């Protein structure tokens, strides 16, 4: 076959300035195993005259030695094991050029077993060419690879429907495959630039337009590659500059890293997240021996640079630098879509280390929301994620992390998970239903000095006859928090306790009237209630708070405010029970979609891990619940 081809050699014109570098685009070739990825690459190299001298002959010799027909795969399958077994094990790269630009062609294995190698190859690319066998049609890995390309952030995709010679170059069958695959790609948010009917073996529509398929009016594969745009560095986005290291080789203390997004200038005020320390950029450090080259005064996305600051603050690797406005999200919990590559399955409750930019921190898998079948995008639930599966999960960290949503800032909204010594998975961040906690932990007050009270806590306890404290009720809407709270308040009052109920709807009339139901405002609502409850407790009162308070982070912050006087009471009833009660008709509205982000239905409820007391209202009548609580108060709040 290659002998027969009248190669239209398209060696790149070399009439340009020899000392200037040509543009480079990295293309990954993906698709189901045996759909002809390697053959297409071989054909492209051959027909453009890009093979080194003797390469064709040496591949021929390798095939003869093994007694197999000529096999282009041997161009990139360099390992003996690959050649002997006729399968691509690991990703490889090869260089190629057209008149327009230079290309790095990345070959990615199509076999499911080598998904980690496919991802390794694909993640390095600017654009992708997806190969589908015309005779076999769209297969499992055709879909999975399309899905993963999108998840990896690759937005430019062209499709080659290969082996058209096997279906007699028929347009009708091509149209069916094109439609099926376009529908799939559209459903995951990918629009292919071109879908091209080709025969890699015969050379149709690879470099030269096909005579056998005159019905096809679109570009050849090589033309389609030339139509891809180089990925521009995201210089016009908010600054994201992770600290990679801090050096002190000489008198300078240099903060080094690569700018992932945005730009900065000398003199800019910057903030380090999550430490929230601020400083100004004093200089951009630079080493060069080229005479007359000055240190730059500004830098932008893609550059590896170093800076010094106007004041000596302690910062370390892992902090994320931004401008003060447009800073990244701070949170200790977020949603993620992940692909799992680990030898061991990912399991709920297990701890891993996350690498997010240059930051490393321990995290726990709080929940596995669903496993996504990449062939039909259906969801199933499971307590673990197997190797090569894609899943939606919720991750919790033990400390605050600085990050972005992948949809707005891909480079700081993606991460890997480490299991023991190995990268076991990768994922992208979504904050859907979760709050940016930056506002909650940023103190804007300055020049504050605490005043000592003239009355001690012991004096208050002695006069009241009991200690002050917080009974923090948490549970689903309809679990019975308010009912139990009000009944308990009455009972304790009658017994002579100073007691007061803080209820959700009541505080939103006054103290929190300026807050909406956005995740951030909900978190702020709880923060304020936590602080007010702490003041009540210090005043010697027993305060009962009655809020769904679905997030662990919010409740932990409330606990910090009251410290040892905080008692978390889990008012427990499952969703079905609460929905059957539905005292305010809210579940009905949530089911119909009238209320969005409703806890338990369309927003998460994170049950307490170790509450001081559990009141199971689906099993206990109100009176018994109250009695249990009275008993608890009498034991814990006595003088």
């Amino acid at each position, binding site marked *: 076959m290659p002998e027969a081809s009248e190669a239209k050699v398209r060696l790149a014109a070399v009439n340009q300035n020899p000392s200037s570098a040509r543009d480079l685009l990295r293309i990954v070739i993906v698709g189901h195993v045996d759909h002809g990825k390697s053959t297409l690459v071989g054909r492209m190299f051959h027909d453009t005259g890009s*093979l080194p001298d003797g390469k064709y002959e040496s591949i021929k010799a390798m095939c003869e030695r093994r007694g197999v027909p000529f096999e282009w795969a041997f161009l990139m399958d*360099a390992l003996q094991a690959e050649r002997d077994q006729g399968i691509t094990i690991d990703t490889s790269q090869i260089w190629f050029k057209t008149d327009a630009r230079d290309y790095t062609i990345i070959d990615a294995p199509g076999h499911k077993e080598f998904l980690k190698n496919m991802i390794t190859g694909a993640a*390095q690319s600017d654009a992708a060419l997806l190969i589908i066998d015309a005779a076999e049609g769209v297969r499992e890995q055709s879909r999975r690879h399309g899905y993963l390309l999108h998840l990896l952030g690759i937005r430019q995709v062209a499709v080659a429907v290969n082996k058209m010679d096997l279906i007699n170059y028929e347009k009708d069958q091509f149209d069916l495959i094109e439609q099926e695959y376009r529908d799939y790609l559209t459903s995951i948010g990918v629009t292919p630039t071109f879908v091209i009917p080709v025969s890699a073996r015969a050379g149709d529509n690879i470099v030269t337009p096909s005579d056998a398929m005159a019905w096809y009016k679109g570009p050849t594969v090589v033309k389609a590659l030339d139509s891809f745009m180089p990925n521009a560095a995201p210089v016009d986005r908010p600054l994201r500059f992770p600290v990679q*290291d801090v050096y002190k*080789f000489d008198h300078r203390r240099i903060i080094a890293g690569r700018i992932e997004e945005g730009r900065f200038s000398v003199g800019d005020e910057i903030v380090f997240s999550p430490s929230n320390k601020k400083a100004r950029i004093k200089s951009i450090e630079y*080493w060069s021996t080229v005479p007359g080259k000055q240190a730059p005064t500004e830098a932008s996305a893609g550059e590896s640079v*170093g800076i010094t600051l106007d004041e000596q603050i302690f910062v370390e690797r892992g902090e994320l630098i931004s401008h003060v406005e447009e800073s990244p999200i701070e949170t200790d919990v977020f949603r993620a879509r992940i692909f799992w590559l680990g030898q061991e399955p990912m399991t709920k409750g297990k701890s891993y280390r996350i690498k997010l930019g240059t930051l490393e921190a321990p995290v726990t898998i709080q929940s596995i929301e669903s496993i996504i079948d990449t062939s039909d995008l259906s969801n199933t639930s499971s307590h673990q994620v197997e190797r090569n599966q894609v899943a939606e999960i919720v991750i919790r960290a033990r400390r605050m992390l600085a990050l972005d949503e992948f949809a707005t800032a891909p480079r700081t909204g993606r991460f890997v998970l480490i299991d023991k010594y190995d990268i076991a998975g990768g994922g992208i961040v979504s904050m859907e239903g979760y709050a940016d906690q930056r506002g909650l932990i940023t103190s804007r007050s300055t020049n504050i000095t605490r005043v000592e009270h003239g009355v001690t806590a012991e004096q208050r306890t002695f006069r009241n006859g009991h200690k002050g404290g917080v009974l923090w009720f948490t549970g689903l809407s309809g679990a019975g928090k308010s009912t139990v709270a009000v009944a308990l308040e009455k009972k304790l009052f009658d017994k002579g306790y100073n007691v007061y109920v803080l209820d959700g709807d009541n505080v939103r009339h006054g103290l929190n009237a300026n807050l909406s139901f956005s995740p951030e405002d909900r978190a702020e609502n709880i923060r304020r209630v936590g602080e007010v409850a702490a003041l009540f407790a210090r005043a010697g009162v027993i305060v009962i708070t009655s809020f769904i308070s679905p997030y662990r982070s919010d409740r932990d912050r409330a606990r910090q405010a009251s410290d040892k006087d905080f008692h978390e009471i889990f008012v427990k009833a499952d969703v079905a029970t609460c929905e059957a009660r539905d005292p305010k008709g809210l579940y009905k509205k949530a089911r119909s979609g009238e209320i969005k982000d409703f806890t338990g239905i369309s927003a998460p409820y994170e049950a307490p891990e170790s509450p001081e007391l559990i009141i199971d209202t689906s099993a206990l009548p109100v009176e018994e619940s109250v009695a249990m609580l009275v008993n608890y108060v009498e034991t814990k709040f006595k003088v």
Partner: protein
Amino acid sequence: MDRLDQLESQSIFIFREAFNRIENIAMLWSLGKDSNVMIWLARKAFFGHVPFPVMHVDTEKKFPEMYEFRDRYSAEWNLNFIRELCPPLDTIDDTLPPAARSAARKTEGLKLAIKKHGFNALFAGIRRDEEATRAKERVFSPRGTTGQWDFKDQPPEFWDQFKTDFPPGTHIRVHPLLHWTEIDIWLYTLREQIPTIPLYFAKDGKRFRSLGDKDITSPVASTATTIEEIIEELRTTKISERSGRAMDHESEDAFERLRADGYL
């Protein structure tokens, strides 16, 4: 940023990751064009310093011009320079073909040097476009306790997150130039005015494209006497870069076997 700026920035990023994450790392200096660019990039990454040892594993069979270059620039670039000698040839497996045996001697010298200094990792200036098994390499490439490369099960590497956690006894090769091509090396050498060994320029119609031991490295036909002319030549040539390196060609998998055993 143009292509060279992007390549440079990526290499600097790799240098800084490795220097931060791995204790006791050193750089291999083969004295060739690639490792000279590598030293240059390290100085960029660390603001004029090379904060780790730079080691030459010496076969004592290099060209005199290479030794002159080494002695001059190890001083001029203020390197923490280490020279280690390879063991005598008669201690190496005599069933190997001559060039492979010579390469195996270098691998042995390398292993001894790593052991002697207790290096956990080495920066090596290999590139994917040099040779087909190198095209399958990772930037952070783990080796077994005896230096062997398990190319059938390499770690995943994406989004610039490298494997930086290893059980004790693992040795790591870090490849800051893996994504560069031969032309990139020369374009950068030209732009940055990096000193170059004269053997790369044509003399009597021949020049060296790749430098190795005197006895197993041969020059290619060329008229290129300047870097600009080398770049011009590389844009049209169809001869592969390592065609003058004998150990690559003794059998189909000669180089794979060398690399699996710990060769660069």
